[in-house]
């Protein structure tokens, strides 16, 4: 039996939640004071995911950096692999919001897309 301690992010209460796991299966969720905490804790211990946002160098634009994000959430343990791929990207202007900058980043099946417009100069 494995136990995990979490802080709920549902509201400013920040309940300290204890989850008991057995072979990757959730056995119990304790310490939460509402249903939100239960849902959060179960997802967080079995399949934690995050949106990653960053910037990349861009050539030929009116700005030196382009802000980007993963179009969907990616597994939490892939954050640094995703960052490596993002850092290797080097797009050229012009770029529009939503343009794909990195396809299938770090093999997650998720694209990295632009979050701002940059005009060519």
């Amino acid at each position, binding site marked *: 039996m494995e136990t995990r301690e979490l*802080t709920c992010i549902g509201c400013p209460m920040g309940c300290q939640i204890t989850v008991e796991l057995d072979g990757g299966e959730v056995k119990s969720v304790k310490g939460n004071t509402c249903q939100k905490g239960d849902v959060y804790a179960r997802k967080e211990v079995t399949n934690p995911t995050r949106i990653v946002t960053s910037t990349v160098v861009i050539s030929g634009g009116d700005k030196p*950096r382009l802000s980007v994000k993963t179009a969907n959430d990616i597994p939490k343990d892939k954050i640094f692999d995703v960052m490596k791929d993002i850092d290797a990207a080097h797009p050229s202007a012009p770029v529009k919001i939503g343009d794909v900058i990195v396809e299938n980043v770090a093999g997650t099946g998720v694209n990295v897309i632009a979050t701002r417009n940059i005009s060519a100069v």
Partner: protein
Amino acid sequence: MLKYDIVIIGGGPAGLAAAVSARKSGTEKILILERDHELGGILNQCIHNGFGLHTFKEELTGPEYAYRFMEQVFEEKIEYKLNTMVMDISPERVVTAMNREDGMFQIEAGAVILAMGCRERPRGALNIPGYRPSGIFSAGTAQRLVNIEGYMPGREVVILGSGDIGLIMARRMTLEGAKVKVVAELMPYSGGLKRNIVQCLDDFGIPLKLSHTVVDIEGKEHLSAVTIAEVGSDGKPIPGTEERYTCDTLLLSCGLIPENELSRSTGVEMNPVTNGPIVNESLETSIPGVFACGNVLHVHDLVDFVSQEAALAGENASAFVKNGCKDISDEKGIEIKAVEGARYTVPSTVNTERMGDLLTVRFRVGAVFQDSYVSVYFDDERVMHIKKKIMAPGEMEQVILKKSALEEHAGLKTITVKIEKE
């Protein structure tokens, strides 16, 4: 002299939403004055996501949220001037500004909307002892350097203050390869969102030390180390609790202050709690025809509420112009007071005739309250009693007043907002 119906000072989220709303309310000649080289304000450097859940029902990044409003400004063909610094606003609403192309120029404005936003509390306001080497940045300055200019301020980082910008920068610097050693917070609780504490600190194993502050800064040319210590309930460092961290960067995330130099020189009456103008239900300041919204009025935690508030200011400024710019400042109406746990309210007065069907009164609490009630009194009668599981200084609260309820209480003098245990 140039003439506009409405001049908006600042092209950030507040200024953009105010402009769009004023145009939709039927005002033609609107001008936005922005000192940066692009519209969007601070959102351009807030590249993280989480913006717009209330407004667009999806999580956007800062630049995306700003662009949703910029698009509307472009579609509505609202005029704006970039790289333009406003020098003065006279009580008669003559705006003096300057830029490279036009030099110094003046605009006669039917109404003025203050939307200058806020800035960070600097080191000089924090009384941190020690040397003054390079390597000490406000968190927002570091954010601009990393996200807009593409420079890393340093490699080994200590952060003082657990405001959201500090937390966001802890993650950002970590993702870009820096080592964030500790976040120290003077208060026994964090001013940041729980989500940011978990996703920006816990995810990367960055310790958060509550009730801690910086007691020494080392380094003559560049920062070399920072010492933090625990503070007691008297707010003073406890001897023997010092911990020294070698680092080349110290980020300060110790609160935001509305940027009101212009408002003050115009003679707008200020609220000492918010450091923003005192406004009525129309978000009009003590000077007729001068409105305020967004972080220049009071610091918000969510941009969605800035947009809502700014839209109301735009609508009211438009109504003021249509009404022939009439001075109605003597018809203040009912006073709204914050006492016992509630620190302030925006607005501070409400004139029933001028309000819409509903009026949102925003406020902040002064401490963490659990299982308490937000109560609203009409004079001595309690008319609202809303149970809250938790309230914290870092999260803005609101109550909504109904026009019909106010009309039923003829002769009402004071509305009081307070926090009660039961």
